[in-house]
């Protein structure tokens, strides 16, 4: 037994940051060169007042609007983000109220980055198999733009604020999950002075009230090309599947080059390896559900297909599974 992902809906903030604007701001490499380096033409930026949970509400409301699903059918809520409304209480509790879900639901926040969607799926899978939940509303939403200094060209080129919402339900296909964690890499992608570790240094920059995101892109890159191919191999072994049996590979959309190197290493043809960074950027935990959503719209992804999902990044952390869509 496993789970299926249904009714994915997406929310994009209004403001778009394109390569032309980045060129205007930084007067550095040309818009075309930005695209060549990153594979990205535009990203979405949440407004100052708009939080990740607001975006999550928009995506969820779209979901309820487009489906027959009743709010009282939801019996568990998972909210995956790294930008919560408050230090306390839990944002998922506030979302229970804002989305008018029942009081009898369980609700948790999952503070996670790029591997967050697969982690959330893994937890949802356990909750559903154990009988704890039947219909889980799973929201991913993040606002990385709020942690990036205006002057950081590299990070502004990459990251994007996007929310997704979907329903997780029981399915016959038996999905296995492979997880990996290596905290020795925690300083390679971090919001410095953000939490309780250096509480006295926290909050002192009004422009970056949540701390400043710092990334050692070389280390993140090295980690990803080392770990992801191993993870793919292990997933295939665990599922006793040949790589040819996988209909579509949907990986976290980190950057074009990284994805391309990974694709070549695992020897998957282009048409089976979905990439949709171009008009979205790296949307952290939303990248995989967003890719699934767009792949389905384009007709690349169809019900019943075997899809390999892989998330990797901040932590370091990596996670993968194979689902039947």
């Amino acid at each position, binding site marked *: 037994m496993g789970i299926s992902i249904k009714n994915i809906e997406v929310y994009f903030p209004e403001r778009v940051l394109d390569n032309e604007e980045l060129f205007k701001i930084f007067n550095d490499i040309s818009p075309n060169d930005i695209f060549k380096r990153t594979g990205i033409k535009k990203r979405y930026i949440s407004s100052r007042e708009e*939080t*990740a*949970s607001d975006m999550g509400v928009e995506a969820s409301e779209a979901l309820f609007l487009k489906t027959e699903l009743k709010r009282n059918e939801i*019996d568990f809520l998972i909210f995956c983000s*790294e*930008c*919560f*409304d*408050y*230090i*306390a*209480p*839990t944002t*998922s*509790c*506030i979302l*229970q109220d804002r989305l008018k879900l029942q*009081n*009898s*639901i*369980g*609700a*948790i*926040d*999952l*503070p996670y*980055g790029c591997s967050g969607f697969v*982690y959330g799926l*893994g*937890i949802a899978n*356990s*909750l559903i*198999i*154990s*009988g*704890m*939940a039947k219909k889980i509303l799973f929201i991913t939403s993040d606002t990385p733009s*709020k942690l990036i200094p205006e002057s950081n060209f590299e990070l502004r080129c990459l990251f994007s604020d996007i929310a997704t919402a979907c329903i997780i339900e029981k399915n016959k296909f038996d999905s*296995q999950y492979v*997880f*990996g*964690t*290596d*905290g020795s890499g925690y300083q390679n*992608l971090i*919001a410095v002075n953000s*939490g*309780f*570790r250096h*509480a006295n240094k*926290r*909050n002192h920059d*009004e422009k970056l*009230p*949540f*701390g400043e*995101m710092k990334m050692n892109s070389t280390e993140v890159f090295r980690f990803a090309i080392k770990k992801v191919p191993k993870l793919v191999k292990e997933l295939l072994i665990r599922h006793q599947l040949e790589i040819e049996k996988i209909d579509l590979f949907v990986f976290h959309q980190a950057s074009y080059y990284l994805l391309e190197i990974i694709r070549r290493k695992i020897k998957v043809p282009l048409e089976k390896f979905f990439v949709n960074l171009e008009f979205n950027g790296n949307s952290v935990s939303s990248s995989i559900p967003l890719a699934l959503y767009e792949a389905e719209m384009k007709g690349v992804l169809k019900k019943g297909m075997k899809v390999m999902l892989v998330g990797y990044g*901040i*932590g*370091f952390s990596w996670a993968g599974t194979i689902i039947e869509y």
Partner: protein
Amino acid sequence: MAYQQINNIRIDGIVSCVPSGIARTVDYNIISKEEQSLFIKTTGIKERRVASSDVTCSDLCYKAAFDLLEEFKCKDEIDVLIFVSQSPDYFLPATSIILQEKLKIPKTCMAFDVNLGCSGYVYGLSIVGSILQSGQFKKALLLVGDKSTISTSYTDKSAYPLFGDAGSATLLSYNENTSPWYFNLQSDGSGKDAIIIKDGHSRNPYNKDSDELIEIDKGIIRAKKHLALNGMDIFNFALREAAPNIKNLLEYSKTSIEEIDYFVFHQANKLINESLRKKLKINLDKVPYSIDLFGNTSSASIPLTICHQLQIELKSNNCKLLLSGFGVGYSWGSLICEVQSVYTKLIEND
């Protein structure tokens, strides 16, 4: 409904860790001697433990986990590591990942944080239970705790003297010779303002007004960056929701009050917990307290109470426990579980 039955789970050990620094209610000079004794009488809190400025919740959990893993010599077997807290080291990355490295747990482990307060231990156990139940993963380490004292304002008598710091580690394993566990989990976000840190995250980013001390009421002076607690609302919520949640769980699991050996409640405040005890008609000797010495330690209060009060009982006997956590969110949940020869220990961080 978020009821759940989980099979094949065993608690092997629980270690709790508190800082050595003690803050006594009688030394809290914002309130008069009379107010101090009334406070001790109603909340039960005589003293609390306060972590020094360079110690975080993850340090307390680390110490507890280190001790536990030494005892069981099983750090290489940990498949799942969960850190439940509202005081993480960083907003990103997740603290559980940092702890994986510090504890030298294998890189093949699943590690994630859950952001919950008073209900965190019960929620954490339900997530661990769900993950282990399938048998794919064999051993899990559940770390829960908070450093709440850093978030309260000294001049806020409604919050400052209530909270203590603590961390805990619980080792769980897949085991087919155990009886089922039963959970009942609930949420109500309409109570979000009852316990809240208003400024400092995405909804109200930190700004120059966040530090400004404001007199809310007599004896209640705090800034927006501080933890604000509406005692009356929390009190009402706990009286209204905790007892039915427990009663429904007893009914769902076909368990009578008499069958439960110990009811370990979140240590919120003695008046709340005593009301709950009387409502459910439970004998006093079945309801252990640790609030007198540690205050409200958020998600760590249940494991801390177990380590402080039930060490001998859990080591030697087969005990049926009902654990119940309720508070910030609002979020609340209860669990009925049978435990047997559990290693427990309470340690101090120096």
